[in-house]
């Protein structure tokens, strides 16, 4: 493991965004900061600011109203970044499938790296997904470089 990857792995700053969730998953995301789950032991901090964030924890099925905001937040986050879709709604749209006012999943709007199932996603599952996302930095950086090459 290179130093670069180690540093990225040990300091994942979080941006949590609710795109029209029922708040079930949001409560579980907030539970990660409590003493019981304490995501700060992995170095994770909730920065609530896309410019500081490395990992975007997105909940909700992405309503049409939220679409632009979500894209905006994604674009304001500096590379390299990871997107984690938390819960069934964020992964597939789940009960809101084919609703006229939702997009049906985060991946319809921005690229997603990790999907966490569950309604609501349990904190243990969220930590699992979070840690899985941390192992993807190298792949992510490679991808970004390949995209840069392709553009040239």
């Amino acid at each position, binding site marked *: 493991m290179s*130093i*670069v990857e180690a*540093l*990225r792995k*040990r*300091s994942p*700053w979080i941006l949590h965004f609710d795109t029209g969730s029922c708040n079930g998953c949001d409560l579980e995301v907030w539970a990660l900061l409590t*003493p019981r789950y*304490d995501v*700060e*032991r*992995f*170095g994770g901090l909730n*920065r*609530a*600011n896309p*410019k*500081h964030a*490395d990992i975007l924890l997105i909940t909700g099925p992405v309503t049409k109203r939220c679409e632009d905001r979500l894209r905006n937040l994604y674009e*304001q986050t*500096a*590379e*390299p970044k990871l997107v984690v879709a938390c819960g069934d709604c964020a992964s597939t749209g789940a009960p809101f499938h084919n609703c006229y006012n939702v997009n049906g999943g985060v991946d319809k709007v921005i690229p997603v790296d990790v999907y966490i199932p569950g309604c609501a996603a349990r904190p243990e599952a969220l930590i699992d997904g979070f840690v899985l996302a941390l192992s993807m930095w190298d792949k992510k950086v490679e991808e970004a470089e390949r995209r840069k090459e392709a553009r040239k």
Partner: protein
Amino acid sequence: MDLSAALLQILVAIAAPLVVGLSMGVDRKITARMQNRKGPPVLQPFYDIGKLLLKRPLIINELQVLFAGATLLFYAAALALFVAGGDLLVIFFVAGAGSACLVMGALSSSSPYSYIGGQRELLAVFSYEPVLLLVVLSIGLEGSFLVGDIGAGLLTDLPLVLLSLVPVLVILLEKSPYDIPTAHQEVITGPYVEYSGPYLAIMEVGRWVHLAFIYGLFTLFFWDPDPVVSLAGKVAIAFAALLATIVIDNITARLTRERMVTFMLTAGIGMVALNLLVLFIVRGSL
């Protein structure tokens, strides 16, 4: 000055911010343990800085980058002067220029969070700078304005002055009850909102350097002819101050901006004044 002394000073000037960075890690660990959490590793602040330097830079405007650099440079100049045994008043004003650059950097962006953060940082500066100036003046009155000439006796003569530095440290460490500029639930990270990646790292290191100067003021209060005892005492005073702010942070809720200004300009200045008054009565002169 001979070469080895100069080398030692350069070494101390470089090591001091790193020690402050380590103290931030210790701070996060102790805070986590106080809240019954496991907490991040002690080296976490360094991981954060390293990670930030590796992020792709996003520039909002060139002015902001300029102010970020200026903030770090002014704070670094203040610390260098301090380590070299310079004049405390000059150091105080150079550090003040750094704080001014921090505010201007925040105000240079159109983001409302950054703007409010800048305004609040100004209020914080308005609250702690008068106390800091009076502390510096009292040290000058009792010992000397030249850091290199300050000897023993400050702790016994100016205990309340030392105490008045604690709320200053609370504000500068962005801790409750006076974490006004960076109140997370209100303005996220306030003046730092618009900085990202390497520029945020510059601001963070700047903060460490500034804090190194403030901890330096704490260490002035202890001195012993034996360098080992002297160093141990200095470290003990700085660590006690950090521990006090951590405890205050964990047992208090955030107060309003007005309360911060009122407290610092009455209780903060009052403590220094009381100390000097008692000294005057006991000795008959200053």
